[in-house]
């Protein structure tokens, strides 16, 4: 392995990898505030809308991560994952034109909020063999927000 490492350093394009730091931690770390705590500065006025609206907005923000693979606009093309327009309460594996895994197609699931919650928490535990291999959301509150957002995207 040592030999390989030094050989690797011969390839100039990869020099940076050979000179990697031993990753020192901070010399000085000033923690002004914990990440979850409210800022000392006055919070911006809450946007108008009820709690449900806020939840959907939170879900929409969190969905940005999902949007790398999933479109939500009506008739938008499938990405690496199927379009999720009006997906809630639809049978699994039925979005036109998407190449589902056999496992998902055969799952017999209907995408209720509860089923979505279980799937998003750990897709391959819920449906072994699914090709959704990334994008799991560990945080239950974030999942609820994302599902609320998906529920808000309907044909109506």
């Amino acid at each position, binding site marked *: *392995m040592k030999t*390989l*490492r030094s*050989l*690797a350093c011969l*390839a*100039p*394009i*990869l*020099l*940076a*990898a050979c000179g*990697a*730091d*031993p*990753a*020192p*931690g*901070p*010399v*000085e*770390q*000033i*923690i*002004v*505030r*914990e*990440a979850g705590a409210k*800022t*000392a*500065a006055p919070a911006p006025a809450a946007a108008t809308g009820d709690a449900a609206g806020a939840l959907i907005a939170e879900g929409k*923000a*969190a969905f*940005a*991560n999902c*949007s*790398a693979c999933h*479109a939500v606009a009506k008739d938008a*093309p499938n*990405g*690496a994952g199927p379009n999720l327009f009006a997906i809630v309460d639809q049978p699994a594996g039925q979005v036109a034109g998407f*190449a589902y*895994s*056999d*496992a998902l197609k055969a799952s017999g699931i209907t995408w209720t909020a509860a089923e979505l919650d279980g799937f998003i928490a750990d*897709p*391959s*535990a819920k449906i*072994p*063999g*699914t*090709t959704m*291999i*990334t994008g799991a*959301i560990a*945080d239950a509150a*974030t999942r609820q927000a994302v599902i609320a957002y998906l529920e808000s995207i309907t044909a109506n």
Partner: protein
Amino acid sequence: MSKTETGSPGKMGKWTRRAFIGAGVVAGSALVVGVAVRPGNPIDRLSPMLADGKDEQLLNAWVKVDADNIVTAVIPHVEMGQGVYTALAQMLADEMDADWNKVQILEAPADKQYVSDSIGRDFLFPDLEVPALFEPTVAGGILELAQAMGLQFTGGSYSVRATGQRAMRTAGAAAREMLVAAAASEWQVPAGEITTADSMILHAGSGKAEPFSKFALAAAEQSLPAKPTLKSPENYKIMGQSKARHDIPGKVDGSAIFGIDANVPGMKYAAVKAAPVVGATVESMDATTARTMPGVLQILNMGDFVAVVADGYWQAQQALNSIDTKYSKTEGDSLDQEALFARYATHLDEAGENGGDVETEEGDVGKGFAEAVTKVEAEYKVPFLAHATMEPMNCTAWVRDGKCDVWSGHQAPVNARQAAADAAGLAFEDVTYHNAFLGGGFGRRSESDNIIMATRIAKATGYPVKMIWSREEDTAQDHYRPSATSRFQGGLDKDGKAVSWSNIHTHLFDPKDAPTVPYYNIASHKIRKVDVPTQLRFGPWRSVDHSQHGFFIESFVDEMAHAAGKDGYAFRRELLAGSPRHLKVLDTAAKMSGWGSALPERHGRGIAFVPSFGSIVAQVAEVDMSGPKPKVTKVYVAADPGFVINPDGFTAQMESAIVYGLTAALYGEISIKNGEVQQSNFHDYPMLRINEMPEVEVALINGDHKRLGGGGEPGLPPIAPAVTNAIFAATGTRVRELPLSKHSFA
């Protein structure tokens, strides 16, 4: 080494003796075919990993066929605007006879199984020839080496000519043959009577026609074709076509995700400032103001840089700007631009007539020069250059519970993953690297400094952090194209024919052939280099060493032509005599430009010719010198990359290389004072503006379909010398130092 060729020798290059094909079934529904780089069939081992979901996706494969007759091309390279997804998918789909409208694209995960074996080979053993008998051992060795090097790398203009030519086409052809064999068995007809087209399997005699998907499972049971037959160019249906780019719709409608778009729930933002002199450390930081500023969560002195973590990027950057930082002294503090060039000169002087490291030597250059009737000498200089990618450097990282996730756009995802693992103090397997589109790479994103910094910050905070560099940081903390000096001595005989060529230059980085001129027929030549230490970080910059040597060599050829009393085009024709393929490229560019025809006062034409990365490119530039500064009005390009897979994409690469190279020729300069980079943003490191862009005309030549060249870089090296040669033609002033903004032509 003796050759014990067992196949049709050299039929499609060398892949037949190098590749091993594997096939398998994923999740019971798809045929998966890959070109493995060692004996055995790793797909059987890898498929369950995908199916049971216990591991991240692992497919040592380049193609999948699923039950809906969708063909998926798995692309082991990253998309940074060069169109690689589309070109590689074209190569696979064509060999497979797939329906282009039903081809999907998947970027390979950052996994060591996807290292580019074919790239590793060309880097390390460019002329490797081994008997078929020993091939498995050699291939296995290469895989190990390539894995150690993390060569899942996009750069060196390698994707199409290496991965495409050796892997994607082979995988497509193998998949097709296996599908045909499966159908032949089912239909009880000879395989030779079966044809394929548009993802369908057809038998004319019986009128049978079924989609690929019908035989996907049965195909996976077929024995693997050891040497699938690749198409010859007259049978190409998708290769050679300007297929629409797969990545563009998302870039137009805004849905495309770049590294900087990473969005992780709970994520905070970091702004960073590294020590302005490389090697210096933070001695003290006064964060009195910063800690009272809105949104600020943490202020970190990381030793070599300072970081502020806040709720938003702007808050982090503003707080960072308020911090007063003192840095340690280093040896580099006194470094100035002039001193650096003086240091180059000293080393070159010390090397004298015979010192330095000889790169190539042929004939007796001393004798040739001594006997020459006309002697020409010149010295050229180029400055450091930054990459200035449109998307600023960034990385998002989350280190928690013994795991690490990293999001960015990187040219070598396996390297990035390893760098994050090292920085987090975790094993490679505990890091998940999520790659996205690159908003410009140009070599900058082959470095992992941003990955390491973000991971260190995330490790310190414990929550996900997106680190974004300001443009000032991007400009001042790049890995630069080195500044360089190059000296030449050339000799001409009584007929004005070049007989000796001697060059000594600073630095040699990559590719090793950049300073050499084997295509020019000169009786004696000797090329040497001297290494001069500087503390600035070097990095590959689009076309790498060709970016400076293209300018040096083609300027000096022009000076020799002038000394010989000859036209630059005619002089190069003489030097290329006996190389019809080279001549055709040169002639095409000259003819397109109307070379020799009259131009207005203070207008000029210049020609330059640079083969690089396996492609041959000639350019003619026209300049208008009637105003206060040079205006490049037109550029004619002739390019022969062997065979053009996607003409529109290749043409775009020629055009963008001219934008990038002309920017550098006109303005590009990173200068050093007191050890610090002087430039900070686009006001002092300007880019070419749209009103300065010349009209570009590109002619493509398919000169050798068996040996492909690259597309991303070869358009760049000729532009600077084509322009400076044109300036000489227009004004009589020879430019020997870039950028042009240093010079007055009034």
